[in-house]
């Protein structure tokens, strides 16, 4: 009987530098559905895994930032295309995580990629400036990626919440080290698989699953991370994270506290929160 066929289960792994390693620690933790069903064992990333992810993100950053904005926009759009093709998988995972309307969550996540994809070649026009200085210089200000961004994705909304943090971070040319939802990491693992098969270069997005309370201090204190998005940092860890962020003057950003499905959950200010503004004085003379 065909019903007797045993399905092949996926091993949920980390995503670092475009490949899928297990945690070097050899540790995993059990992921269960909202109703308590066991779903999988996710990799429990160690401090060394996190450091490897930062190395991968740093290595990928200059090239990602130097691609044309048009190109980055198309690559983000392609992530949306590939998610659409895998929507059944994402819906099933959101359903396991307890979503009341999984299709709505997947729709919103895909649309969020499309929305931010379109900003790639517009953010400099909207947030940059030419400045009428009182000397003979052409003076202009442009947003530039801040570099490597650590992202602690919200524990709730394991797909839309994640995409809402990652897309605005990378569209400007940052690379990211992402801590997935601890309770529901599987949509993040699937997103990693989408990344791997889209045209997002390896190392641009690195996804760690594991224990948030362990990973946050390592990420916040890492000296080669330029900024940290603390949207998913639990309240009792926030002070420590901000203290650790001081050591290399990390930018600390928290996303808007709004309904993730609302229009207010996406904005170009989420992009510029993770950019630097560079001002150039170029001489004018005959």
């Amino acid at each position, binding site marked *: 009987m065909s019903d007797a066929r045993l399905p092949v289960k996926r091993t949920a792994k980390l995503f670092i530098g475009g490949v899928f390693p297990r945690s070097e620690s050899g540790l995993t933790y059990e992921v269960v559905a909202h109703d308590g069903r066991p779903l999988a064992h996710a990799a429990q990333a160690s401090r060394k895994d996190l450091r490897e992810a930062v190395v991968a993100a740093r290595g990928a950053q200059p090239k990602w930032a130097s691609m044309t904005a048009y190109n980055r926009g198309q690559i983000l759009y392609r992530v949306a295309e590939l998610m659409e093709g895998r929507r059944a998988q994402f819906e099933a995972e959101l359903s396991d995580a307890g979503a009341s309307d999984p299709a709505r969550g997947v729709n919103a996540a895909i649309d969020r990629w499309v929305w931010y994809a379109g900003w790639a070649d517009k953010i400099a026009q*909207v947030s940059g*400036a030419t*400045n*009428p*200085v*009182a*000397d003979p*210089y052409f*003076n202009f*200000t442009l947003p530039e990626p*801040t570099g490597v961004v650590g992202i602690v994705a919200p524990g709730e909304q394991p797909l839309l919440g994640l995409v809402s943090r990652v897309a605005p971070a990378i569209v400007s040319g940052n690379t990211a080290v992402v801590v997935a939802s601890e309770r529901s990491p599987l949509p993040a693992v699937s997103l990693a698989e989408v990344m791997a098969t889209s045209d997002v270069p390896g190392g641009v997005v690195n996804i760690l699953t594991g224990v948030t309370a362990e990973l946050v201090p390592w990420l916040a204190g890492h000296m080669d991370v*330029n900024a940290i998005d603390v949207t998913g940092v639990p309240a009792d860890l*926030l*002070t*420590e*994270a*901000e*203290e650790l*962020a*001081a*050591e*290399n*003057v990390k*930018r600390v*950003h*928290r*996303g*808007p*506290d*709004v309904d993730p499905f609302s229009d*207010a959950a996406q*904005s*170009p*200010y*989420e992009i510029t*929160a993770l950019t*630097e*503004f*560079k*001002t*150039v*004085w*170029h*001489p004018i003379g005959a």
Partner: protein
Amino acid sequence: MSEAIETPSATWEYAPAPESTDIVRLDDRYGLFIGGEFVEPISGRWFETIDPATEEPLAEVAEAGAEDVALAVEAAREASAPWQALPGSERAKYVYRIARQLQERAREFAVLESMNGGKPIRESRDVDLPLAAAHFFYYAGWADKLEYAFPARSPRPIGVAGQIIPWNFPMLMAAWKLAPALATGNTVVLKPAETTPLTALLLAHVIREAELPPGVVNIVTGAGATGAALVGADVDKIAFTGSTEVGKAIRRATAGSGKRLTLELGGKAANIVFEDAPLDQAVEGVVNGIFFNQGHVCCAGSRLLVQEPVFDVLLAKLKDRLQTLRVGDPLDKNTDIGAINSRAQLEKISELVDSGVAEGAEIYQPKCALPERGFWFRPTLFTGVSQSHRVAREEIFGPVLSILTFRTPEEAVEKANNTPYGLSAGIWSEKGSRILWMADRLRAGVVWANTFNRFDPTSPFGGYKESGFGREGGLHGLEPYLELDGGTR
């Protein structure tokens, strides 16, 4: 410290051309400016502020304790609602008034700035004061136009801002802090630097004459403890300009508090001279880059990167130029390099310069007589510097230039970016395409091409990496003082 090296050069005699100090009328002692009045400090403590060029006391200034700071914050809090309720067009006119009064009284401010801080009168008169007035004038005009600056947002003031400023540009930094804060509808508690409080206190008089509602601007004088009290007080935002070390401490102190924060910290800027640069112009730019304001400049061009083919000729020109720099009386209109701001800073500079000699770099200082009293340091060049030397890595905040070389533009970029700082950079080249290629790759918030240390109220300023975050100046200088509906921070 090693002996100055003698080089032959013409010595020109200048007659002294001192600026008169008659225009400045100092009180014996200055209280705290809280709620529109000068008040005695609850702390009961006072400290002396001096002229670093003579070490003579100028006045006594109140030292604000935690209770005094709390009182100032309370005054700012009380003034907040009515100030926010004013139409932007009315707030604008108050800020315009400040700008106009600064223009009217510019000479008085400039002389006092040079007396209390040691900077040459030529700079305080031609740079600090005009820029400070221009900054108020620029931001005044934003007060009733904020909704045009942030698409799809309704900007609101944050509330009460605590602002802590350094001693290197006392008036200009006060302007950079106050102008955008007031234009955006915030009230302020400003803490001037310990060694240079006097122009801020004179500014308090201007603020009173401009009839700003009491409590909108409060000024508390003191040292680090006063600043720490302000950071810990019931303010909604902290804006700090100063050292990276203190900036990090403030970041730690505000962790978890929800207070908004902007930091403008240290730097170790590369000034990069290509072989095709206009060399005479570059020499002037290099000199201005590091010796402007005795090198007490966070964005100072303290690392000179010279392309190898022009190293010898540039160094010779630079040494010649150093011989003509006049070190001495800040109030003399011919002075190029004034007094070091404080004894503590002089000791810090000396220690770092000694480390450069000890680590094997070659020192060059022109021969010039220094006054007997006061704090002075000769303009100093280091050659034979490697990237690992402390003089190439650490912010010296004095008239000390470390010179390194490079061969290719790629190498220049790599060396320039090889620092935890990222405030500014300079490029000297006649090739426009190279300027923009370099500007794109330098990890610094301000990139000057064929100029250096140039500022404008319309031009955003601020750092990458450990030079801090947030921008001051221009449209981008508004955001640190606003809440944008939608919850972004």
